[in-house]
C-alpha cells in the first residue's frame, strides 16, 4: 500500500492535466460536475484552479444506485443541481474515489436523463483497484493500492483529508 500524498499537490497536478484537456476544446466551454459528497469538494477545488466560467454542477446519485433495494438510501438526498444545459456540452465529471465504477455508472445515467452531452471526461482524486465495470478516469490524482478490506475516504470540505479505514 502506498500512502496518499499531500492533497493540495494532487489537486494542483490534476488541474494541470485538466487544463491540457480543456485547451483542446478550443472555444467550447466545458462544464464541471461533482458527485455528492466528496466529488463536489474535489470539483470545487478544481473549478477554482481552472477558473471555469460555467457554474459548478452537482449530482446526488442516490436515486440512481443499483443497490437501492438492498441497502436503501440516505435519509436526506440532496437535489442534483445542473445550472446549465447538458445538451452538446463537454462535461468534466469529478469524483473523489474511483473504485467499482458503479457510482460513475449511476452518475452517467443521471446525466443522460438531463440531456445528451458532447463528451464526458472523468477525473478522480484517487483511483484504486476493484473495478467491476469498464470505466476508467482520464485524469487521476493518485493511484492507491488497498487490501480488499480497506477503504479510502475523503473528509472535508475544509480541510480535505484522506483516511484509510478497515472495513468492519
Amino acid at each position, binding site marked *: 500500500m502506498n500512502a496518499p500524498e499531500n492533497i493540495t499537490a494532487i489537486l494542483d497536478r490534476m488541474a494541470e492535466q485538466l487544463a491540457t484537456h480543456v485547451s483542446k476544446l478550443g472555444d467550447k466551454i466545458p462544464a464541471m460536475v461533482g458527485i455528492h459528497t466528496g466529488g463536489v469538494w474535489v470539483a470545487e477545488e478544481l473549478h477554482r484552479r481552472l477558473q471555469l466560467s460555467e457554474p459548478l454542477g452537482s449530482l446526488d446519485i*442516490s*436515486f*440512481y444506485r443499483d443497490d*437501492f*433495494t*438492498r*441497502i*436503501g*438510501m*440516505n*435519509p*436526506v*438526498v*440532496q*437535489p*442534483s*443541481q*445542473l445550472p446549465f444545459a447538458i445538451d452538446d456540452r463537454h462535461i468534466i465529471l469529478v469524483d473523489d474515489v474511483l473504485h467499482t465504477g458503479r457510482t460513475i455508472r449511476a452518475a452517467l*445515467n*443521471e446525466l443522460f*436523463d*438531463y440531456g445528451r452531452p458532447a463528451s464526458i471526461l472523468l477525473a478522480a482524486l484517487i483511483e484504486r483497484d476493484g473495478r467491476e465495470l469498464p470505466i476508467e478516469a482520464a485524469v487521476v490524482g493518485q493511484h492507491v493500492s488497498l487490501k480488499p478490506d480497506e477503504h479510502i475516504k475523503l473528509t472535508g470540505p475544509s480541510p480535505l483529508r484522506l483516511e484509510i479505514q478497515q472495513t468492519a
Partner: protein
Amino acid sequence: MSASNLQIDSKGHLRHFLSISGLSRQLITEILDTAESFAGVTEQTVKKVPLLRGKTIVNLFFEASTRTRTTFELAAKRLSADVLNINLTQSSTTKGETLLDTLRNLEAMHVDMFVVRHADSGAAHFIARSVAPHISVINAGDGRHSHPTQAMLDIFTIRRVKGPDFGRLRVAIVGDILHSRVARSQIHALNLLNTGEVRIVAPRTLIPTHAEELGAHIYHDLRTGIKDADVIIMLRLQRERMQGALLPSEHEYYELFGLTEEKLAVAAPDVTVMHPGPINRGVEMDSEVADGPRSVILEQVTHGIAVRMAVMSMAMRRKEGATQ
C-alpha cells in the same frame, strides 16, 4: 397480527403503509426526510428517477377518487415504476371472496405493490394480511379509518412552513371529524410528533364518541377553537351529511364553521390554512381565505407527490434486503 407487526418488518423497515398508528416517531421522521429528498427531485427539470424501474404498481381503487389516484400514479411514474390503474366499484366486489379473487388474479401478474382505496374501514389491513409476502400495500384511504399518505403530506407541509419543532404549535382541525379518515390519521401523526396542542372543532353530530382519547381537545365554537392557532386544517364537508340529519344546511354550517378572513383574525398572526381538497368554496371557507396568503392548499398537492414517492420507495426497498 397487530398493525405495527403488519407494517414493519423484522429489521424495523416499512413493509406496508396502512396507518399512522403503529409507526414510531423515528419512522415518521424518516418518511418526512425521504420526502424532502424527493421534493428536490420534483423541483428539478428531470423529475424522474429510476429507483423502481421494472416494478409494477397497481392502483386498486374500490372508491372513485381521481385526485388521489392521479398523485399516486404520478409518484409511481416518477419512480419509473409501471403503473396499472384498476377501478372497481363496491358493487362488483361486495364479498371478501371476490376481493380475494381479484387480489389473487393480480398477484399472478407479478405485481409488486398495491395502492388501495376502499370504502370499508380495515380494507387495507385485510389486503395486507392476504397478499403474497413480496407485495407491499399502501393505504390510499379505507372507510373512516385511515388515510396515512394524506396525513403525512399535511405534516410535511406544516414542517416545511413552521419548522421541525411541533411542540410549539397549536393545530386546529375543523369539520366532519366523524367521517374523516384524514382527521384520524392527522391527529395520530401530530401526537406522534408531540404537537403542542391538537384541537378538533365541529358540532357534536360530527364528532365521534370518545374523540378526546384520540389525543385532541374538543371545541364546538370556531372562534374559540382557532384562537391563537398556528395551523388550521379545514376538512371537506360531504354534501350527503345534510340528508343524514347531521347538519341542517350548508348555509348554517358556513355561518358557524366556515373560515373567513374576519374569523381568522383570532388565530396566530402567521397562521397557516390547509385543506385536503377539493374545497367547497363558501362552505368550508370562502375564496378570500382559500386563495389568500395564508393558504398552502396548492403546496399540499405538490408535496403529496414527494410524500408518496417516499413511502412507495421505502416500502419497496426492504424486499430484496429481506431475502439476503
